[in-house]
C-alpha cells in the first residue's frame, strides 16, 4: 500500500469520527436548521428588503448559514486532534507506516472533507427551503455551486488548520474549548454572514469592517449569495481572495500539528 492510500485511509477514519459523534451531529443540525428556518423567517419580517441584503433577509441569511455549517464541521478537526492527543491515539498513529507529514495531511484533508460534506448537505436543504418559500433559484446557480466545491474545500482545510493550531497549542488542556468558542464567536461575528458589509461599516471602526470583508467566511458567503443562489457569474477576484486567505490558515495548522508530533517524539508526550 502506498503512502497516499494510507493517508486517504487515515483521513477517512478521522472523517468518520465526525459523523460518529451523535450528540455533535444532533446539535449541529438543529442549530443550522433553526438558524436557517426560524431565524431566517422571523427576521425577514423585521428587516425590510434593501440593496444591501437583496430581496429578503431570508435569502441573505441562508447562504451564510451554509458557510457557518462548513465552519463548524471543519473546526471539529480541532476537537478530534485534541481528543487524539488526550486519548493517546496519536502515539498509535505514529507507529503506522506513514510519514509524519502524511499524518498531518490526513487530518487537514479530513477537516476539509468534513466541512464540504456537511455544508453540501446544508446547501441542498437550503435549496429545498428556497423552493418551499417561493424564492427562485436560477439553474446556473446549481452549476456554480458545483464549481465552488474545490474552493469551499480549500476554505474548509483553512478552517481545519486554524482549529488544528488551537488544538496543538492547547495540547491536552481544557483551554482548547475556550479557544474554540472564541474562534467561533469572533470569526462568525466579524463577518458578513449575518449582516451586510454596509451595516458593519456604518456602526464599527474601519479596520473591523476590513477584517470582516476579507474574512474567508464572508468571501464564501458572498460568493454563494451572488452565484450559487443569485445565478450571477463567479467573480474571480473573490475566489482568489478566498484561496489567498484560506491557504495560509491551512499551512499554519499543518505546521502547528507537525510541531506537536515532533514534541511527542522528543518528550514522549504532547
Amino acid at each position, binding site marked *: *500500500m502506498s503512502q497516499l492510500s494510507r493517508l486517504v485511509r487515515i483521513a477517512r477514519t478521522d472523517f468518520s469520527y465526525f459523523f460518529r459523534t451523535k450528540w455533535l451531529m444532533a446539535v449541529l443540525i438543529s442549530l443550522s436548521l433553526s438558524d436557517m428556518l426560524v431565524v431566517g423567517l422571523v427576521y425577514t419580517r423585521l428587516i425590510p428588503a434593501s440593496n444591501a441584503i437583496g430581496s429578503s433577509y431570508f435569502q441573505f441569511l441562508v447562504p451564510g448559514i451554509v458557510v457557518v455549517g462548513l465552519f463548524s464541521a471543519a473546526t471539529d478537526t480541532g476537537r478530534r486532534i485534541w481528543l487524539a492527543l488526550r486519548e493517546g491515539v496519536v502515539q*498509535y498513529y505514529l507507529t503506522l507506516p506513514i510519514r509524519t507529514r502524511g499524518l498531518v495531511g490526513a487530518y487537514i484533508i479530513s477537516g476539509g472533507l468534513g466541512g464540504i460534506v456537511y455544508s453540501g448537505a446544508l446547501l441542498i436543504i437550503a435549496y429545498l427551503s428556497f423552493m418551499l418559500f417561493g424564492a427562485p433559484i436560477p439553474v446556473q446557480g446549481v452549476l456554480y455551486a458545483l464549481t465552488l466545491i474545490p474552493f469551499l474545500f480549500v476554505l474548509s482545510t483553512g478552517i481545519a488548520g486554524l482549529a488544528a493550531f488551537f488544538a496543538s497549542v492547547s495540547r491536552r488542556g481544557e483551554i482548547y474549548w475556550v479557544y474554540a468558542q472564541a474562534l467561533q464567536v469572533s470569526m462568525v461575528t466579524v463577518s458578513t454572514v449575518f449582516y451586510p458589509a454596509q451595516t458593519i461599516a456604518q456602526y464599527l471602526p474601519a479596520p473591523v469592517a476590513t477584517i470582516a470583508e476579507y474574512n474567508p467566511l464572508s468571501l464564501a458567503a458572498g460568493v454563494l449569495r451572488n452565484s450559487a443562489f443569485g445565478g450571477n457569474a463567479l467573480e474571480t477576484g473573490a475566489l482568489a481572495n478566498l484561496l489567498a486567505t484560506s491557504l495560509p490558515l491551512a499551512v499554519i495548522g499543518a505546521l502547528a500539528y507537525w510541531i506537536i508530533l515532533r514534541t511527542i517524539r522528543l518528550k*514522549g508526550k504532547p
Partner: protein
Amino acid sequence: MFAVETLSLSKRYGKTDALRGLNFTVNEGEIMVILGPNGSGKTTLLMILCTILKPTSGTAKVVGIDVVEDGTKVREVMGIAFQEARGFWRHKPSSILRFHASMFDIDPAKRQDLIERTMKDLELWESRDKMFMHLSGGQAKRLETAKVLIQKPKLAIFDEPTSQVDLRGKRKIWDKIRELRDQGSTIIVATNEVREAEYLADRVTILHQGQRVVCDTIPKLKDAIAGGDIVEVDFEDPVSEKLVGSLNGLGGDVSLSPEGNQLRAKVSKAEDWVPKMTSASYVAGAKIASIRITEPSLDDVFLHFTGKALADQP
C-alpha cells in the same frame, strides 16, 4: 544480523535519565523478555524501537534499519501492543482491527476471517459490539495484542501484554505469542512479572535504571546467582549467633529470619552443604524441624540482579 541492536542508547526526559547507554541485542526468531522493575526504562526502550520516541544519543536498529534515519521503513516491519491500550474511542474492536490490517496490507480477502478468528482466540468476540471506550481494561489490552497478532510483523513488541488480563486470558495471550514466534516473528516482551518471563522467554534481559544488568537464558541466569541451590532450614528453637557464624564458614550466603529460627542459605551445591550443616547444628545442640532444598526461582534471579544493581548505586 540482529533483529534488534542498540548501541549506547540513551534517553533523557528533562532531568530523568530513562535509558543510560544501553547496549541490547535480540536475535532473529527469538522471544526476548525484558524484565525490569517499574521505571526501569522498558517502555522508553520500546517506544524508541517503534520510532515514537527519538533517542537522546546512541543508535537503535531494527532488522538493520536505523530507527531515526528511516522511521517509516522500520514501522513497516514492526508492530507494537502498547502498555496502555490505545484505540479510536468510538470504533468497535473489529473496525479498529480492520483499520490496522489495512495499514499493513493484510490481504483484504483474508482480513475478515483472520480478524474473526483472532478475536475468538482472545475471547474478544463477545465484546464485538461494544465501542472501544466501553471495553474493560483487560478487554482493551486483549485488543491491543490482537492488532499485533493480525499484523504478524517481522518484529512484534508487547509491552506488558497481560497486565489487567485474567488468568485464562494470560495463558491464551502467551500461547499466541509463542505461536507468532513459531511462525517466524522476532518478539520482544516487556514485563515485570516473573511468571510471564518464565513462560515465554527464550532469553531474558534484566533492565535496571536504564541499564542492562544481565542477559541470558533462564537456566543460565539461575546458575549465575550464588552457585545454584537454596536451602531453607527450620529450627525448633531460635539458634545462636555462634551457629550462624560457623554455618557462614561453610561457604554460601546464609541469612537468618528475624525470629531466629528460620535459615535461608544460597549455596553452590546443596548435597555438599546440607551434611556439613546438620553436623554443625548437632554439635551446637540446635534441633532441626525441616529442611527444604529448592532451585532458585526467576524471582530470586530478578531480585538478586535488580537488588545488587541498587546496592551498586553511589
